[in-house]
């Protein structure tokens, strides 16, 4: 047999990377060709040696490296309530505080924008007249008001007025509209 397969092909065969037809041809050839079988064996030995060397040199994961990984993760992770802390940064806090101060000022009565309403002007006589009328209706008022001037001969009107008040006070329940 004069034709041999290249070392590259044998490497691909060794790694199972040939298509089925090519794989079968190489398999058949190697079984009959000492040279290619020897070359294949050398490549196989190289692979075995590589794996053996890797196994001998294998290292455990250093404990300090574990700690480094977690330290890097912590440095990336946002801290609890970090959003609060982010608001306290000067670049954020100052504008926010200024805006809040402006809002409070303009919303307060001291603000020039606060609507001013003049107190309604009510004549003093209104209070006196109103109060006198209330006094007449309430005999138990603290301040004793002078009795209204009653014209002579009209005594009954005051009494009848008082009686009217008493009548009004003693209202029969039956006459009331009960709202249930």
């Amino acid at each position, binding site marked *: 047999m004069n034709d041999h397969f290249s070392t590259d092909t044998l490497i691909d065969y060794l790694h199972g*990377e040939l298509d089925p037809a090519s794989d079968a041809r190489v398999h058949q050839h190697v079984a009959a060709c000492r*040279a290619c079988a020897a070359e294949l064996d050398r490549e196989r030995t190289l692979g075995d040696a*590589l794996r053996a060397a890797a196994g001998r040199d294998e290292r455990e*994961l250093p404990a300090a490296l574990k700690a480094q*990984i977690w330290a890097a993760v912590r440095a990336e992770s946002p801290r609890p309530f970090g959003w609060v802390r982010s608001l306290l940064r000067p670049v954020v806090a100052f504008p926010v505080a200024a805006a809040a101060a402006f809002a409070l000022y303009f919303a307060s009565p001291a603000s020039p924008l606060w609507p001013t309403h003049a107190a309604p002007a009510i004549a003093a006589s209104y209070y006196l007249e109103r109060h006198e009328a209330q006094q007449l209706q309430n005999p138990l008022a603290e301040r004793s008001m002078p009795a209204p001037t009653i014209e002579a001969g009209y005594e009954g009107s005051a009494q009848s007025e008082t009686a009217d008040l008493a009548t009004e006070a003693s209202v029969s329940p039956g006459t009331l509209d009960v709202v249930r």
Partner: protein
Amino acid sequence: MGVPRTPDLPPSPEQAAFLERAIEQYGKATYNFAYRLTNNEADARDLTQDAFLRVYRAWRSFQPGTSFLSWIYRIVTNLHRDELRRRKGRFYEEIPEDNAPQAYGGQRPLAQTPIDDLVEGQLGEPLSKALAMLSSEQRQVVILADIEDYSYQEIADMTECSIGTVRSRLHRARALLRKLLMQAQQH
């Protein structure tokens, strides 16, 4: 070296549990993969830390039922490539695709190689040195194909290159390893 204290948990308990489990199950394999890639303990630590930080950030994108190790190995290879580019400031040339099985024309000499002469234990140190002399991409493919036993397609997915490129890199890497071992044997 003391036992690290229990870390303060991040806001999501599920995310923390995911990371804890990932470190426990795949931390050693990831660290060893990173070490074989970089051949340097400090770089391997940084690479491993960055990889798990990526895992933490992207934990929701992992699809249950798929290989977590493939996922994190992909992260490691990407980080390693980015770091190399950052340090060296240049891009590596893509190796042309060469995926056709080729027949060897003529007789194959029954040449003796250092691999024939060395028993397994003797091959270890020169092999480790020879592996360190490969380029990063070549070393990456040899590790994934010969040590981690991934298929060419899986390696192509992890390293974001074509199957032909994976194949070519592996062929050249193995050829270089044989050559370096032969030189080491002669000295």
